[in-house]
């Protein structure tokens, strides 16, 4: 096999996992855009999505076309409850405090999953065909291809929404100044709820895809850290950043894994993060915080 | 112990300073001088670049060209803390007190650049560190807090104070910096007549008793006319007039760009009458 073909295959695989990263990053971005909360529990919400799907598909024996939407809706519901229960009372508190609340939330979710499903890793019932897919001569795993397509469509929809929909302004206005948003007639609690519901549902959806590829376990939330790197590099409030950052990181991880070895992916990932932060402290596409005296 | 300003009032010259943000030119060659021991006012329409000039002087912005001279020495390259060490102190347009600290600590903080305690001394808190802290405490209490009549609030967290008092604490903190040059950005904005009078009294007293050069941005023309010795008018980042208060007020260009018809109350009454008809 030629080196070039191999390189292309490796890159395609990287783009595929990059799309998953982008989807998870989108969950960060949606919530951040409206509430300025960096939700560190995105990884755990991903995990929850995987387990919900597992419960519906393996536990209740529902077919995939029913279990997938149910799990996504379930994720959204959890988002609504979390927003109502612990995020709204934190309105007006510092960003760091809310960030830490989500750290606590992550821990609670892990505990709950362990309590209900134990800590054993599990495999999701297969719902994506395993027939290999060839782009020309290059092999792509079908699951990865499906993940890529789903992520691309979802991100595309959100990009359009934010471009042409007035609600995007409401989201950002709310994030900047809640009192002022209220005074402009924006339904601030509503915006909060929507952002969390949609963000968590997105995370749950990403979790199903992730689980289909690698199985589910209470530790799969660490994936959230990679997605976090994506949003930091791409810019916390930029959907485009999530997309570009996700694909880029997917590629880079794939290349490092192949040419340097899997043990290097973390250093390289975080090394890139630090370099990116030094060059562009607010990410590639993020907005600068305005500081004036 | 040497209370008060470090060796006399300073002379500040701003020479041909320009500054731009991205494409926007905020300052286009501004020059003026603040004479030692005087009150110099900088006025001008909103967005004219007054705060930007202050930021250039205190080192928060780096002008693209021009010089800033303190007693004839170019300080344009010094970092803000170094400039503070030379006796430059300022208050901020949007109050910039440290909300997590008490009034006393806020004021003490002003002295930071003049203190010497190093990390090791601080961890042990014996000998020099303790002596320095005690001396500072005494001076702050006896000279500044007493002078500005804020003894009743010294241990309160600043976040709970009303706007007027916060402005006063800002002044106190600036005084703790042993200023030779004091920059005040809109010291009486948001104050009513009575509070403005108090502040005017403090500014005059600081000038006289502490012998400090004062540079002040303000929109309250009444105050400017009454207490300043010299006025510089900025518009679109350029000096359009300078001189004694009365001269500047009479300048038609200034009236047009900045002062308006002169008596807004009269204008309102007229509008009102029109509306009623």
């Amino acid at each position, binding site marked *: 096999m030629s080196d070039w073909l191999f390189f292309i295959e490796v890159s395609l695989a990287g783009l595929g996992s990059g799309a998953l990263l982008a989807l998870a990053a989108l969950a960060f971005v949606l919530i951040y855009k409206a509430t300025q909360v960096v939700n560190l529990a995105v990884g755990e919400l991903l995990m929850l999505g995987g387990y919900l799907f597992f419960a519906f598909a393996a536990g209740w024996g529902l077919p995939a076309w029913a279990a997938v939407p149910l799990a996504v809706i379930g994720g959204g519901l959890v988002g609504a409850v979390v927003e109502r229960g612990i995020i709204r009372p934190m309105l007006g508190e510092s960003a760091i405090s809310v960030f830490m609340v989500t750290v606590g939330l992550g821990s609670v979710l892990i505990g709950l999953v362990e309590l209900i499903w134990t800590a054993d890793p599990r495999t999701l019932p297969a719902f994506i065909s395993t027939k290999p897919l060839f782009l020309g001569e290059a092999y792509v795993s079908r699951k990865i291809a499906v993940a890529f397509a789903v992520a691309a469509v979802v991100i595309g929809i959100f990009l359009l929404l934010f471009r042409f929909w007035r609600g995007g302004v409401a989201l950002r206005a709310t994030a900047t100044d809640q009192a002022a948003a209220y005074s402009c007639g924006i339904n601030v609690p509503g915006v909060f709820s929507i952002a969390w519901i949609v963000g968590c549902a997105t995370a749950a959806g990403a979790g199903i895809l992730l689980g289909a590829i690698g199985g589910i376990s209470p530790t799969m939330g660490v994936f959230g850290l990679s997605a976090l790197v994506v949003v930091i590099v791409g810019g*916390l409030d930029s959907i485009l950043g999530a997309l570009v950052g996700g694909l880029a990181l997917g590629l880079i991880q794939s290349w490092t894994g192949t040419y340097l070895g899997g043990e290097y992916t973390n250093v390289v990932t975080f090394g890139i993060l630090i370099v990116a932060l030094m060059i562009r402290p607010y990410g590639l596409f993020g907005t600068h915080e305005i500081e004036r005296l | 112990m040497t209370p008060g300003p470090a060796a006399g009032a300073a002379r500040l010259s701003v020479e041909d300073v320009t500054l731009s943000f991205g494409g926007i030119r905020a300052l286009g060659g501004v020059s003026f001088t603040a004479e030692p021991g005087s009150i110099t006012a900088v006025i001008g329409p909103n967005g004219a670049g007054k705060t930007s000039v202050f930021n250039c002087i205190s080192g928060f912005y780096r002008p693209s060209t021009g010089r800033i001279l303190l007693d004839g020495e170019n300080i344009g390259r010094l970092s803000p803390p170094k400039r503070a060490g030379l006796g430059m102190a300022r208050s901020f347009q949007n109050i910039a007190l440290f909300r997590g600290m008490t009034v006393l600590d806020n004021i003490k*903080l002003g002295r930071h650049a003049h203190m010497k305690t190093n990390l090791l001394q601080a961890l042990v808190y014996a000998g020099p560190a303790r002596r320095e802290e005690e001396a500072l405490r005494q001076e702050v209490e006896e000279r500044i807090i007493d002078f500005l009549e804020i003894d009743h609030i010294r241990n309160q967290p600043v976040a709970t104070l009303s706007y007027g008092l916060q402005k006063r604490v800002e002044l106190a903190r600036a005084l703790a910096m042993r200023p030779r040059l004091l920059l005040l950005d809109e010291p009486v904005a948001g104050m009513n007549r009575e509070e403005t009078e108090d502040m005017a009294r403090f500014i005059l007293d600081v000038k006289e008793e502490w012998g400090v050069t004062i540079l002040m941005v303000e929109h309250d023309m009444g105050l400017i006319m009454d207490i300043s010795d010299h006025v510089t008018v900025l518009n679109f980042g350029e000096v359009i007039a300078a001189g004694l208060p009365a001269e500047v007020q009479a300048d038609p260009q200034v009236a047009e760009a900045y002062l308006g018809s002169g008596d807004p109350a009269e204008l309102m009454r007229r509008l009102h009458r029109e509306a009623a008809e």
Partner: protein
Amino acid sequence: MIIGTAKETYRADAALLTTRPQQTWTGVLALVLIALPFTLNDYWLYLVCLMTINAVAATGLNILTGFTGLVSLGQAAFMAVGAYTVAWMERDLGTPFPVNLVAGGLVAAGIGIVVGIPSLRVKGLYLAIATIAASFILHFLFVHWEAVTGGNTGINVAPARILGTELVSYFGLYWIIMPITVLMVLGAANLFRTRIGRAFIAIRDRDISAEVLGIPLLRYKLMSFAIASFYAGVAGGLWAYFFRVITPDSFPFMASVFLLAAIIVGGMGTIIGALLGAAFMTLVPELLRFVMDWASPWLPNATVLLSPVRTIVFGLLIIGFLVFEPQGLAEIIQRVRRFFRLWPFRT
């Protein structure tokens, strides 16, 4: 009823312990600390030592995050740096333990400074994430720099020796861990009586105006990082002597989260907060063990529930304190104190 004491000098007003009851209680606490190792069994003594080590690291983190406002999720990695330094010196140099501890602190401080460099450009959560990155990069070093760190296997640490005796029992170790902790906590308390501590707080509140007021930001932010990592390094060094082995997984990322949680629960930006938080967060999982023991007659599989319940309680504590008691345990203590001071008059 205790009424505020009138202070006659500025010095008295600035003292660390200003009231008679405060002095009394401090005396009592000192006696308790001395009596502890004679009364506790190994299990409790182990927990006390662990708590104390965590308290040092949390105090350091509190200086950085609680007082200077620079959020770090890398404190455990700095502990690891200290621990490795101590382990390496014990193994390859054989220097005495006080030297090793100080060196551990200094090396950690050095690394802390490097990690802190982005803090000038990068703020808030972006910085927190840079520290996460730093800790993963350090972890990589621990695994791969085998000559120094022993790779995945790690390093076994020889016991600390003092006057020819080896400190191997918890009883013996207590006598180095506790005094060092007391000294370091006192140092931190002193820091905030001086200009340096004030500068930190100013940076936390609003760094750009602090700069214009004469505080060199880079220098102080790095100083804060250095102090925090020094504390972490010493704590890590103590940890190394306490557990006597160090591997790359000794200080997982969760340990950094644990320390941050400890200062949140204890109270950010108060000296006592870090101590209370470290003690509380170390003890709660153990107390849950007893709770589950008691519950076992009613809950058939109580032992199997312990770990998930612990994970949940850990999360709930963080959430609960942030939502309902953002000032942490320190504030609760303050309220209790106010209550007794004003007692029998309620406010």
